[in-house]
């Protein structure tokens, strides 16, 4: 019973952390609090019986913190004070969010109860992973054998986003002639 209580506690911490992220003024502290939410999430994954995901989440969290801090380090990272008209948009969004939450509460009633997954398909993975594939880590066997096509797509997603980030970060023609550092860019 105490795992449920623990999960509730962790989730409440994550909700508080994300509220701090959204409302805090200084960008750098907002990034830090997102990092905190990410690490609590990784602990939650451990309690939910997903060690693979916990390890990946911790490491990916460190890297995304590095990237996010990179975006906020040497720029003016104080938040923009809200002008009048945007207050109105906040209130309507809050009402809209409230309506969706009410509907979500009703919809989640008819999901299968927490803790009894139907596992209609994944029983096959549990039964056959070791005999057919020879891997005792079922998740690794799903990722790299049963649904290897997903991981192939996954590699393409990462490859596209990095190649795309490079296309965005390249020094365009308009930058070169006014590149004030006078560095001899031997292109």
């Amino acid at each position, binding site marked *: 019973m105490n795992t449920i209580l623990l999960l509730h506690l962790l989730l409440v911490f994550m909700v508080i952390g994300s509220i701090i992220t959204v409302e805090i003024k200084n960008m750098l502290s907002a990034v830090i609090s997102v990092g905190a939410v990410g690490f609590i999430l990784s602990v939650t994954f451990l309690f939910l019986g997903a060690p*693979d995901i916990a*390890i990946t989440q911790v490491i990916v969290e460190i890297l995304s913190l590095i990237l996010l801090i990179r975006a906020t380090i040497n720029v003016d990272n104080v938040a923009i004070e809200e002008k009048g008209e945007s207050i109105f948009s906040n209130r309507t969004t809050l009402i809209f969010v409230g309506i969706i939450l009410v509907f979500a509460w009703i919809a989640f009633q008819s999901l299968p109860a927490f803790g009894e997954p139907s596992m209609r398909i994944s029983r096959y993975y549990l039964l056959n992973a070791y*005999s057919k*594939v*020879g891997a*005792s880590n079922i998740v*690794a066997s799903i990722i790299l054998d049963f649904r290897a096509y997903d991981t192939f797509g996954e590699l393409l997603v990462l490859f596209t986003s990095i190649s795309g980030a*490079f296309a965005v970060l*390249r020094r365009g023609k308009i930058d070169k002639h006014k590149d004030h550092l006078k*560095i001899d860019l031997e292109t």
Partner: protein
Amino acid sequence: MEKKVESGMSSIVKTITSVMVGFMMLFAGYFILFGDEVPGGGFPAGVMMALAYILITLAYGREFVEKRVSGITASKLTDVGVLIFLFVGFFGLYFSGTFLNNFLQNNESLFFTSGTIIINDVAVALTVGMSLYLIFLALAIFGRVVCEGSLCKDLGRDSEEEKE
């Protein structure tokens, strides 16, 4: 007036980094080779390798790392990683009729019992590691000249990392 850019951090950080990087690479190799028995597969291994290189770049400065794994070799390794995964899948299609088929699976004779899982693991780790190291290199180094105009006093050598 090119101020000598003091490359990297203090020597304490450098010694700690040189110790830690060894363990990080070992840990990444552990994930790859034992990916199918122990939690953690190709993705955490790749990100661990990227973090190791980032740690070296931060501690020793860019020129030190540029000699070892320059940006261009990193981007080539990313492409090679994706192509390895593609060819392993294509061999599966060639040998036994369906794409990404684990054609050498579950025979004890081979060193690794679970067939193409380990090879795919290596390909995933290579692609993820090199591409994330690349994006750090681009974001951290490219963008150093963030503010426009003469007010920027940063004199770090902003050589274009990708000679496109």
